């Protein structure tokens, strides 16, 4: 919900956002046009303490009382961390006879073909806590074998004996017909009323048993801790005098209520990165940019996300807790609505080394915040991306992090020489050029793959860069991607939390119903959508506080015989038989956009339907008129080595807070601020916009060939 149109000053609504990350808890308070931010260390043993402290601190700074806050939005890595650290509830899984090991069998593949020594992720529920009962449905949901109710009840003593804290139930084809799951749940609930239950047919009602069961078990695994935490937070806030409702950020980029979050806590994973994408989408909207690539580079990872028409692309699933160094296939699959993004192990702390082939490799190992890069002088000995940036002259060693962390150039050079220069016969400067080129190329490749998977092009997009590393690497990344425009907004250090304040309240309902388009049972689909709309309305209407609501409907479709679906928008009304032709046309257009040509003579099938209801965020005010531009000069220069040409030259240095709207900076130059630096290579110019953002533009002749 966004209230940009609200009056500024005393009468504007006060909104608070809190983002709990692994290291820091970020708090942002907005009141009209004014924004306050603070960062404090996360308190993992009782995260609500950090949240309450941070909120108290920021209210103090703003001179406000808790009762004056109109809305609190919250995102947390708690769910993600519980899975990564295996600190969730003692969970049992009840499934169909003959399928005890779906979680352990996975897809029976190795995520790395050439490593004989790989480890596979352990299921969240060990085999002795995976129970089976006789029952079986066929692919259409018809009963092949009735549920053995006595067998369900017979599990109760074992569940008690094993001190089970949470139970997941998932049956084969249960997404088509949930009757057996519901009956088994009712029997267990009657015997063990205290233990929370997660049903696959509710948590993730889609085909593919491994993904569905994995998601359901993960939901059960994090449920008790999240529910306890949210109740403690709620109590603490009441005690502190807050009256506003708390909304939770979900992985899909929409907000939900505490009640829904307690039922489907798995949807809270990756809320921080989702907030970053929403932040970029909001900036895109305010700036009137239709095609954007969001680029968020932090200390350990970089996240890249496509934003079209002010909306981040969405996906239906991802992997959590990858054990194989960011490798696809080495994590636990989750089938939930998520913001589609690629996250790769490339951040300021990513370490560089030379492999057995003599190839320079950067990441995904990271020096993290402790000991951190070699130049932090805290015991780190391996060279990192930050060390390479320092060697190239991109940071002022005395002014890094607002001067709180003086950097040690000699330590950076020494580390670069030891791990890279000596191995490859390069100077430390050339080693640094190599490290930066390799990491920039890795991010560019990730962005390219991401664009392909979305069936879209990168050319002509604007890169929105934030996070500590985003503005430093943005222009070079843009060059590699054929992008000519980069926007560096303000508030980039707490982008995720600001994004929370820009998110809509929403709910996505999903159902699988497998049918051919040509013989689509229109009545069945309409009945399905009616049920989904009811489900979404129940969550969204009470939380929307009267805001206007939008509904969208989608179907995932493919040619009969293919394995991957394409989402096609459907009209938001009951379908009629005549709609089939239009749906077919839309599908074939979407297919050709991805893969050049439609396939002749193939029938089309529909697998699943999605329905989203969400609040409409108010239109932002029209952007302030663009100021007249005037070129500004700086008296300060620094020796900087260009990453693309490897040549050293004097670059002008500007302090960001000293620049004002209408100032134009011509590259090569650096615009420095406390949290980051914006780099402008030769051929780039930077204009300070009316909002105080930096809009970087590349002259058309620039690029790789420079």
């Amino acid at each position: 919900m966004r209230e940009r149109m609200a009056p500024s000053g005393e009468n504007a609504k006060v909104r608070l956002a809190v983002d709990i990350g692994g290291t820091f808890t970020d708090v942002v308070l907005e009141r009209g046009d004014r924004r306050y931010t603070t960062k404090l260390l996360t308190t993992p043993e009782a995260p609500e303490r950090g949240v309450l402290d941070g909120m108290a601190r920021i209210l103090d700074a703003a001179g406000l009382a808790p009762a004056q806050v109109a809305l609190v939005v919250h995102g947390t890595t708690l769910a993600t961390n519980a899975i990564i650290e295996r600190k969730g509830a003692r969970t049992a899984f009840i499934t169909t006879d003959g399928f005890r090991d779906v979680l352990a069998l996975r897809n029976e593949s190795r995520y790395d073909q050439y490593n004989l020594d790989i480890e596979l992720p352990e299921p969240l529920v060990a085999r002795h806590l995976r129970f089976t009962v006789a029952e079986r449905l066929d692919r259409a949901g018809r009963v092949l074998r009735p549920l053995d109710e006595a067998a369900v009840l017979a599990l109760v003593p074992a569940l008690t004996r094993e001190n089970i804290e949470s139970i997941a139930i998932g049956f084969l084809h249960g997404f088509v017909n949930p009757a057996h799951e519901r009956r088994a749940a009712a029997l267990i609930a009657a015997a063990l009323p205290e233990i929370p239950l997660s049903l696959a047919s509710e948590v993730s009602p889609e085909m593919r048993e491994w993904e569905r069961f994995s998601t359901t078990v993960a939901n059960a695994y994090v449920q008790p801790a999240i529910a306890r935490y949210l109740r403690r937070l709620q109590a603490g806030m009441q005690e502190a005098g807050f009256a506003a409702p708390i909304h939770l950020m979900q992985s899909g980029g929409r907000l939900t209520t505490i009640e829904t979050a307690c039922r489907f806590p798995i949807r809270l994973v990756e809320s921080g990165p989702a907030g970053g994408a929403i932040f970029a989408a909001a900036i895109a909207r305010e700036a009137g940019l239709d095609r954007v690539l969001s680029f968020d580079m932090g200390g350990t990872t970089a996240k890249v996300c496509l934003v079209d028409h002010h909306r981040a692309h969405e996906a239906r699933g991802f992997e959590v807790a990858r054990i194989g160094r960011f490798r696809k296939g080495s994590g636990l699959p989750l089938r939930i609505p998520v913001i589609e993004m690629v996250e790769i192990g490339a951040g300021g702390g990513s370490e560089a080394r030379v492999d057995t082939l003599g190839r320079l490799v950067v990441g995904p190992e990271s020096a993290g915040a402790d000991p951190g890069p070699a130049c932090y002088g805290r015991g780190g000995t391996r060279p990192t991306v930050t060390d390479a940036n320092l060697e190239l002259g991109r940071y002022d060693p005395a002014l890094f992090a607002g001067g709180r962390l003086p950097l040690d150039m000699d330590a950076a050079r020494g580390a670069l020489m030891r791990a890279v220069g000596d191995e490859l016969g390069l100077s430390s400067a050339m080693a640094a050029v190599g490290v930066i080129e390799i990491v920039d190329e890795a991010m560019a490749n990730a962005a390219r793959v991401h664009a392909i998977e979305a069936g879209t092009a990168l050319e002509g997009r604007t890169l929105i860069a934030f996070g500590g590393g985003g503005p430093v690497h943005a222009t070079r990344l843009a060059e590699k991607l054929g992008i000519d425009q980069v926007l560096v907004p303000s508030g980039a250090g707490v982008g995720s939390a600001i994004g929370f304040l820009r998110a809509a309240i929403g709910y996505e309902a999903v159902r699988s119903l497998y049918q051919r388009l040509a013989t689509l049972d229109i009545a069945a689909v309409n009945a399905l959508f009616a049920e989904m709309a009811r489900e979404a309305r129940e969550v969204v209407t009470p939380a929307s506080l009267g805001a206007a609501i939008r509904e969208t409907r989608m179907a995932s479709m493919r040619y009969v015989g293919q394995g991957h679906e394409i989402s096609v928008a459907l009209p938001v009304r009951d379908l009629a038989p005549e709609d089939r032709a239009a749906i077919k046309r839309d599908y074939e257009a979407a297919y050709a956009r991805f893969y050049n040509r439609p396939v002749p003579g193939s029938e089309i099938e529909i697998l699943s339907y999605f329905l989203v209801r969400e609040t409409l965020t108010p239109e932002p005010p029209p952007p302030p008129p663009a100021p007249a531009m005037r070129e500004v000069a700086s008296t300060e220069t620094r020796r900087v080595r260009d990453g693309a040409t490897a040549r050293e030259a004097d670059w002008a240095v500007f302090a960001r807070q000293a620049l004002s709207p209408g100032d134009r900076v011509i590259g090569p130059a650096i615009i420095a601020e406390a949290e980051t630096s914006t780099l402008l290579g030769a051929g780039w110019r930077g204009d300070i916009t009316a909002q105080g953002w930096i809009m970087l533009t590349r002259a058309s002749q620039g690029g790789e060939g420079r």
Partner: protein
Amino acid sequence: MSAGKGLAAIRHQVMWNRLIAVVEEQAQVMIRTAFSTTVREAGDLSAGVFDLEGRMLAQAVTGTPGHVNAMSESVGHFLKKFPAHTMREGDHFITNDPWLGTGHLHDLTVVTPVFHRRRMVGLLANTAHVIDIGGLGMGPEGRSVFEEGLYIPILRCFEAGRPNATFFEFLRAGSRLPVELEGDVYSLCACNDTAARRLGEMLDEFGIESLAPLANFIFENSLRATEAAIAEIPAGIYRASIRSDGYDEPVTLAAAMAVGERDITVDFAGTSPVAGRGINVPAAYCRAYASFGIKVVVAPEVPNNWASLQPFGMKIPEGCILDARHPAPVSVRHVIGQLLPDLMMGCLHQAVPERVAAEGSSCLWNPPLRGGAGVSSRREGNRLPPDFEIITFNSGGTGARHRRDGLDATAFPSGVRTMPVEASENVAPIVIWRKELRPDSGGAGRTRGGLGQIMEIAAEDDREFACNAIFDRIQHPPRGREGGHEGASGYVGLTSGAPLRAKGFQIIPEGDRLLLKLPGGGGMGPPDERDPEAVARDVRDGVVGAEAAYQVYRVAIGADGAVDDIATRALRANNQKE
């Protein structure tokens, strides 16, 4: 080193990374557009980029070794028939010739020239396993390749962007699944088109006209790295052999591996002769899996390309089962071929024991299932039962590693995935009643072999159906190393009790089910050296019986499930004396 030269090296490396990204994208597009479940769900495919001489520069990480290394030989055959100067923009070439492609008619290979500013700069190739190519269908029963399906010589399937209508008409006519097959060919061409576009963008971006300097950089570095890796292996001649159940009699595969200073040569003398049925292996497929087996131990980090495969030489005696010539039947060459990495590791174990795993289940247990008119003429009232043709990919356990247990029910050496049961049941009228781990199947050892799995499959409504069995490791289970025990043998039969043959077309009668027990991996090291806590965990999880824990692992477990330390020490001390 001067800044200029340093920069050039960095640029070459960046371009190498880009090439690998380009071919990975090629593979991903294939997975997303393919029709055959074997490609889109199982990932039985490969993709790569080649220079004008037909030498592979880079290969997608996604894919399966039997394809990859065989495909790398294949492009040369295309160029022999259609020299580069005869190729035009928009052409796509195709074959499924087992001797010019990847070893059986079910694998289609598509090769596409890449043009940049009207000059040909390289080629793209890919391979995919399609579900049906006519003939007898996937299985061992053929007595010559002519019975095994439609044979596609190297020809143009697209000419200057236009489909070759005659070819597509023959193709559709020759298959039980014409729509899927045609769709798959479109998919293979589409993924090469995508990669060609990316390659052009790369040439533009880096301002280069030719891939040749980059090829030299890749080949020099890869060869040097592979040779350096070989130099770390103690030189010598290492011999091993392994046995397959064969079709009607066991097959011996024998190898003498000569590790030299800079190369490794394997001589397969002593290997059984060509068989009468389709388990025979064309030489390219033998070289593919044998070099994979060596490379994964010796130089796993070197990316696959022409040069990184050069130091591995193979001498395959004429007439042996690993050099089957046309027109020998070769449909299920993988049951023999996938044993080759175990054979290579049997040799390498003598040189670098700690890098090598015990033998595993290795051969995929993929039951090709067929129902309907192709199996029985039984009518249901006036209606014939539905026709279907499906293959699901399933794996037993892999061999124990030195530091870790083998992987449960995981494909090795093949790089494929299984399909969800729910997806299989939506593709064909079958019911998979059971698919779960097989207790007590992992070979005992200090580290344990991976577990196999048990499957029970019926046709919908308990109809009659058929399985064209291609299973192995039933008479010859995976062996352990260094005192580790064998993994459990495979088993194939009817749920009602009767066993079935390991190979060949067999009927599962109405009301009965196909029962598969997949082999477990071999163990590594003596079982009584296994960490007692690991044994207790296995017992708790029901994957090792209490009996085996006591008798084989010599671990005493109390009523509470915890290890009885004192009793265990006593048991193990006794064991040492015996």
